[in-house]
């Protein structure tokens, strides 16, 4: 093993040009894959302020389906969430809040555009914002319709400049005065429930449709389960409730909605066709896996070709090893291992580069709000990708090498 590893490194340093080309291809490929992996990880894995989302189910959509393929789907209404989600038995907490919407905030006659959400008090007990000042919105704020607001540090900077304390100050939202009661650390736009610049109680600014019987509106609901093990039971109960709904509109026969993890919701939205097809998650996951594979195909082919071109140059070594009794399996293992050393080196370079790219994205794309980062899990994924890549691109050349006739190999490598 040590013998093989030193040989692998030796071969790499000797053939500098090939090594450079291969490493370049591998690291750029893995860089791109890692950036996407990091973004996906940042979107789909539970991170502040959605740290508890490993046991949260989201009610983000209600769809209508009719005969002949007519359908219509959108965000749920307040009434829908209030009636069918908020009362789900067995849920630890349920929160209802509006989708993020642009609004204008006035402070001393100066206008600042910001993203607004209206929320109930539970929202603040499921999400774990990092408070820099003051407090969260409470259920009492909501039931009393108190004119209070929580803002991000980013909005605080925009409104008040510098590091001035915002708590207790008054700002004007939608022409009404709100007192700032809390400041939280800014949230990346990838957090489907957490993202906003300013939050106020539901009953202060509820958009039209707050009290209607319509199923669609501009609301989101989240259900915090006691544990993931409760997911199936919550989903079953929810499905029973949905099945009992009679559509008001005669064009539609059934109403569909489901409790999803963030990834399941994304998968549902991603592909065309029936959003409630049970295979959609699988479809989306396979789609992106195949995309990644296709993306790897070209650099992998490049590695295969370089690997094949090295057979001639190493035929003497192959002949010697065979003469001294190397079984084919040992040769295949040796050459695949050498290829793995190359791809792992490429992966390390790619990982470092992807850290730089993410830092640049954090700095230049404002909406990201500094939310893109690397972690051990992404590193683990990267190594997994590199291993897969290395084995796949190394196997064919290795197999060809192991097939050389020893006499031919010793004479100079006739393929």
């Amino acid at each position, binding site marked *: 093993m040590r013998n093989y590893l*030193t040989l692998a490194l030796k071969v790499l340093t000797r053939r500098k040009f090939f090594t450079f080309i291969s490493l370049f291809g591998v690291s750029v490929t893995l860089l791109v894959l890692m950036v996407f992996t990091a973004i996906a990880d940042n979107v789909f894995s539970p991170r502040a302020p959605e740290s508890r989302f490993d046991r949260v189910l989201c009610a983000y959509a209600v769809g209508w389906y009719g005969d002949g393929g007519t359908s219509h789907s959108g965000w749920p209404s307040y009434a829908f969430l209030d009636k069918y989600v908020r009362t789900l038995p067995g849920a630890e907490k349920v929160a209802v809040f509006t989708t993020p919407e642009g609004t204008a905030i006035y402070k001393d006659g100066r206008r600042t555009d910001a993203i607004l959400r209206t929320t109930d008090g539970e929202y603040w007990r499921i999400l774990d914002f990092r408070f820099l000042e003051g407090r969260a919105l409470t259920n009492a704020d909501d039931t009393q319709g108190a004119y209070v607001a929580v803002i991000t540090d980013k909005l605080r900077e925009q409104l008040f400049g510098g590091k001035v304390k915002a708590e207790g100050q008054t700002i004007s939202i939608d022409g009404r005065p709100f007192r700032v009661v809390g400041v939280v650390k800014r949230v990346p736009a990838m957090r489907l429930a957490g993202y906003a610049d300013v939050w106020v109680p539901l009953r202060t600014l509820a958009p039209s449709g707050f009290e209607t019987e319509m199923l669609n509106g501009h609301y989101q609901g989240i259900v915090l389960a006691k544990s993931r093990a409760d997911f199936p039971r919550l989903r079953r109960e929810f499905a029973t409730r949905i099945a009992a709904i009679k559509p008001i509109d005669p064009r539609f026969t059934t109403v569909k909605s489901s409790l999803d993890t963030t990834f399941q919701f994304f998968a549902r939205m991603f592909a065309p066709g029936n959003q409630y097809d049970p295979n959609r998650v699988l479809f989306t996951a396979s789609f992106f896996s195949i995309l990644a594979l296709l993306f790897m195909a070209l650099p992998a082919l490049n590695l295969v070709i370089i690997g094949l071109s090295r057979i001639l140059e190493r035929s003497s070594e192959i002949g010697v090893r065979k003469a001294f009794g190397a079984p084919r399996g040992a040769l295949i293992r040796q050459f695949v291992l050498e290829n793995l050393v190359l791809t792992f080196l490429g992966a390390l370079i790619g990982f470092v580069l992807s850290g730089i790219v993410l830092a640049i994205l954090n700095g230049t794309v404002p909406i990201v709000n500094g939310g893109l980062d690397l972690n051990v899990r992404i590193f683990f994924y990267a190594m997994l990708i590199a291993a897969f890549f290395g084995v796949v691109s190394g196997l064919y050349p290795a197999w060809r090498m192991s097939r050389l006739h020893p006499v031919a190999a010793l004479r100079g490598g006739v393929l």
Partner: protein
Amino acid sequence: MIKLENIDKVYRTARVETLALHNINLDVPSGEFVSVMGPSGCGKSTLLNLIGLLDRPTAGTLAIDGQNVETSERKLARVRNEKLGFVFQTFHLVPDLKVIDNVEIPLLYRKMSGAQRRKLAAAALDRVGLSSRMQHFPTQLSGGQQQRVAIARAIVGKPRILLADEPTGNLDSAMGDEIMDILHELNREEKTTIVMVTHDDRFARRTDRIVRLFDGRRVA
């Protein structure tokens, strides 16, 4: 130790058929040092490759150490690893590996610890008088030294049979003498059976017996 009966070897390419060996019979008892001579293209290397189980005869039977060898590629590799050692005219050292790592190669395909491999390789190098060059790369050595490394590699697994195809062919006569001395010493002290192809009468005369080939046939 080595027994060939009615061996034929035919090379078939797209157009031509070459009868490289015809009806070869040969019996090499254990501990004998045999040299094979003959003009270029008469089949010497072909014969050595057959004995070395690197190639298979077209007809006839071949026995190594009393065992007929007509088995799978896997089993042939085992026999090569345990019973045979090779020395080539062009050394065939792996340029990317240090001398000691080159010598260890045959042991990589045996079950033993790294430390054990290292110990045996160092002993083999000591045997050919190159202990001081363990950490060198092959290109840093003279031709004669490289061939001594190759011999160390051939004997590191303590094979009963050593096959050498023109081991002195690429060396000047002084270096050639050095190599021959080592081979004779191995033959004498370890009772290693040696079959060596050579073009040099001087070296051939020092061996126990000379086998002569002409146009694929044995003539002496």
